[in-house]
C-alpha cells in the first residue's frame, strides 16, 4: 500500500463528567448540539472538508450510541476504499487488556493501526469541541515551518487565559514554553487540543511517555512539555474563528445560545465547511395556528403549538398549546404539555413535562439569578408542579419540587 500523507486520530473516549446529566448514558462526543447535530459532527466534518481519508476514532466510555451513530462514517463521506473511518475501542491482546489511561496512551495502544497506514503526519484531534477548521491549512503551515509538532492555538480573552493550556511563542511561531492553566498567564494563546506530529517523532515520544511511570500519558500535560524540554521543533498555528470546548453545562448552554445571535460566529448556514450529521427520518416540523417561534432553531419532527423564544429545540420536540419556552434547550423528543412555562432550562432527552408546570422560574433560594435549571433524560414531570431555578433533577422525586 502506498504511504499515506496523513491520518487523523480522533479522541472520543472521554466521559465529559462535568456535563453531568448530559453524559449519564452517552459519551461526551455523542451529546446533541445545535438542534440536530452531535458534538463529534464538527470534528468529523472538519476531517471531511480537509480531505483526510483515514480517521481512527478512539472510544472508551459508554460507546454504544457513538458506535452506532458513527458506523463506518458514511454520514461524513468517510466510507472510503483504502482508508475510511475506524472505531478503535480498547481491546484484549495476548497479555490481556488495558483501558486507555490518557490521551497519549490511547494513541500509544493503537500504534499498530497507525503503522498500517504508515503516514508521514498524524493529526490528533478530539471529539469534544465546536469549531469549523480546515486542518489542511495547518498541515501546510507545519510543513512550511519544517516543524516536528504543531499545536493549533487561539487567542482567548486575557481574563480567561488561566483556564487554558497557554503557549508562549517566539516571533516565528516557535513555541518557547507551555503552561497548563497558569495562574499568571504570560500569553493569551490557548491550545485548542489540535496537534499535527511527524509520525516518527510522535512514535518516539509515545514510547518515551509510556516508559515514564510518573506520566499521566496526556498530550497536553506530558507529551508536549517533554518535546519542549528536548528542544524539539514545536510550532503554534494561529487559528482564527469560533472554537469552544463545551466541557461544562454552562459552556454547553452558552455555545448553543451563541448560535441564536443575529450574526453568530459559528454560522451553520455557511456551507464553506458543511457540518454533516447522521440523518433522522422525521417529517418537517409544524407550527400551529396558535404557535409562534422567534429567535430559535427548530429541526425536523417538532410540533410547536405554543410559544418558543430564544431557544434551541432538537428533533421530535413537542410544545403544547399555551406553553411558553424561553432561553432554553429542549433535547430530542422532549414533550411539554399545555400551559407550562420553561425558562433558562436544559431538558434532557425523552423527558415529558405535564401541563401547568413551571420550570426554572426565579426563587429566593438561589442568589445567582443566572443559574440554569437542568432536567435529566427520561423524566416524567407531573402536571402542575414547579421546579425552581437552579435545580438539577436526575429523576422525578416529589421532594424536589412543590405541587402548586
Amino acid at each position, binding site marked *: 500500500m502506498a504511504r499515506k500523507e496523513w491520518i487523523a486520530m480522533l479522541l472520543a473516549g472521554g466521559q465529559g463528567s462535568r456535563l453531568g446529566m448530559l453524559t449519564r448514558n452517552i459519551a461526551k462526543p455523542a451529546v446533541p448540539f*445545535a438542534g440536530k447535530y452531535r458534538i463529534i459532527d464538527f470534528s468529523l466534518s472538519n476531517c471531511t472538508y480537509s480531505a483526510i481519508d483515514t480517521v481512527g476514532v478512539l472510544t472508551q466510555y459508554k460507546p454504544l450510541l457513538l458506535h452506532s451513530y458513527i458506523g463506518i462514517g458514511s454520514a461524513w463521506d468517510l466510507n472510503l476504499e483504502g482508508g475510511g473511518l475506524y472505531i478503535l475501542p480498547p481491546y484484549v491482546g495476548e497479555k490481556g487488556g488495558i483501558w486507555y489511561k490518557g490521551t497519549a496512551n490511547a494513541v500509544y495502544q493503537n500504534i499498530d493501526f497507525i503503522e498500517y497506514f504508515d503516514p508521514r503526519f498524524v493529526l490528533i484531534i478530539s471529539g469534544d469541541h465546536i469549531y469549523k477548521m480546515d486542518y489542511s491549512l495547518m498541515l501546510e503551515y507545519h510543513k512550511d515551518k519544517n516543524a516536528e509538532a504543531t499545536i493549533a492555538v487561539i487567542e482567548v480573552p486575557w481574563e480567561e487565559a488561566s483556564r487554558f493550556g497557554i503557549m508562549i511563542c517566539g516571533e516565528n511561531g516557535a513555541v518557547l514554553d507551555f503552561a497548563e492553566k497558569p495562574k499568571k498567564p504570560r500569553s493569551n494563546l490557548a491550545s485548542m487540543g489540535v496537534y499535527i506530529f511527524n509520525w516518527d517523532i510522535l512514535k518516539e515520544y509515545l514510547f518515551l511517555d509510556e516508559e515514564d511511570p510518573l506520566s499521566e500519558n496526556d498530550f497536553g500535560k506530558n507529551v508536549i512539555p517533554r518535546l519542549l524540554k528536548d528542544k524539539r521543533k514545536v510550532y503554534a498555528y494561529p487559528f482564527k474563528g469560533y472554537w469552544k470546548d463545551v466541557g461544562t453545562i454552562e459552556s454547553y448552554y452558552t455555545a448553543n445560545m451563541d448560535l441564536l445571535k443575529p450574526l453568530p460566529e459559528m454560522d451553520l448556514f455557511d456551507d464553506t465547511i458543511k457540518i454533516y450529521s447522521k440523518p433522522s427520518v422525521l417529517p418537517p416540523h409544524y407550527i400551529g395556528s396558535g404557535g409562534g417561534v422567534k429567535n430559535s432553531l427548530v429541526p425536523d419532527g417538532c410540533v410547536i403549538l405554543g410559544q418558543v423564544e430564544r431557544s434551541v429545540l432538537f428533533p421530535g420536540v413537542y410544545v403544547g398549546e399555551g406553553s411558553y419556552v424561553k432561553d432554553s434547550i429542549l433535547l430530542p423528543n422532549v414533550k411539554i404539555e399545555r400551559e407550562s412555562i420553561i425558562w433558562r432550562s436544559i431538558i434532557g432527552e425523552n423527558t415529558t413535562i405535564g401541563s401547568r408546570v413551571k420550570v426554572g422560574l426565579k426563587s429566593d433560594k438561589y442568589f445567582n439569578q443566572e443559574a440554569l435549571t437542568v432536567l435529566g433524560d427520561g423524566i416524567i414531570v407531573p402536571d402542575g408542579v414547579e421546579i425552581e431555578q437552579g435545580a438539577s433533577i436526575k429523576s422525578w422525586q416529589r421532594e424536589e419540587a412543590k405541587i402548586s
Partner: protein
Amino acid sequence: MMGIITNTKSEDILGELTQHRSMSAVPFGCRYRLIDFPLSNMVNSGIKNIAVVMTNKSRALLDHLNSGKEWSLDRKSEGLFLLPSASPRLFQKKNKFDLKDLWENFDYLQRARQKYVVLSGNNVIFNGNYQKGLQYHKEKGADVTLYYKEEGAHNLSPGSFNYFEVKENGRVTSIHSCPSKTENNQVSLETIILERSLLMEIVKLAADTGNWDLGDVLLDNINELKVFGYPFKGYAGKINSLVSYFRHSMELLQPQVQQELFFANGPIYTKIKDGPPVKYTETAETANILAGSGCYIEGKVENSLLFRGVAVGRGSLIRKSIIMQNSIIEENVVLENVILDKDVFVRKGTVLKGEEGKPVVIGKRTVI
C-alpha cells in the same frame, strides 16, 4: 412480495412542476418527492425487491434515489432496480399502467422469486402497509386486488383507472374515468396486488393484442377475473392535477393528516440533505406552517409549506403558498396562493397573488 412503481405517462398534468422532472420526482410535503410514499410503503411492508420504471426526464429521480441507501435498499441481494421505460418520450394521456414498460422488462419479472407483486402508481400519497392488502387479497381469494378510498367527487383529470364500482362483497364490477356520484365514490389509489404469474400472463396478453393499458385489460376481463377492491381507511391523496396537488399539500397543515401520512405505518424515507435546523429570527412571525430543514425565516409566514433551504426576508408576507427547495424571497415581498418551484429568486418588494385554490406556479430557477 415484490414491488414495482410504474411511470405515469401523462406527466404534463402538473404543468411547470413536471416540465423538467418525472411525476415520481415532483416535490411534496416540504422534504419529500412523490415516489417516497409508495417506495417507503414498500420498504415498511418488508418488500426487498423493488423496481422503479424510469423516463427520459429521469435525472431528478436518479439523483433522488441514488443508491437506494435512504430506503435501506442498497443491498447485495435484490434491492432497488431501475427499469428503462419502453417509450420514454411518449406522453400518452390515457395509459396509467402502461404494460409495455413491463414487457420491455419481462425478464426481470421472470427472474424474480416472489409470488406476489404490488404495482403502484407514482402519484398517490398514503402511508400504508401492503401486507394488509395482501392478506385481504388472500382472504378474498382474489385474482387482482385494487386499493381505493371513498371520497366525494373531486375533479380528477381523465384517466382510465380513476374510479371503481365496488359491490358490498368487495368485488369490483367496473373501472371508469369519471365519478358516478357526488359522494362516496371509490377512487382508485393506483395500487394493485396480484400474483406475479398472473401479471406475466397479462403482460403477454397485452403484447399479443396490443392493448397495453392495464385498466382496459382488467375491465375487459372483469367477469373472468376475481377483481376485488381493498378500502384504504387512512388519509390518501391522488395527485393528478395542479389543483389536487395544491389541495393535498394544504391538507398537510392538519396535524391529523400529518399523523396519518408521516407516521401511521412507518416513516417516509427520503433523500438526505444536510441542512441545519430552521432558524427563526427575532422578526419572524409564524402561524400554521410546515417547514423542512435549513430554512431561514425573518418574515411572516402563514398557512404555507416551506421546503428545505428556503429563505424569507424581513417584512415579507407569505400566505397560502408552497415554496420549494432553496427558493429565496427577499425583503418586503408578498406572496399569496403561489407555488414557487426550486431555486426561484423573488426580488425585494415583489407582490404576487394567485386565485384562491388555483395557485400561480413559478418555474424552477426563475428570477421574479
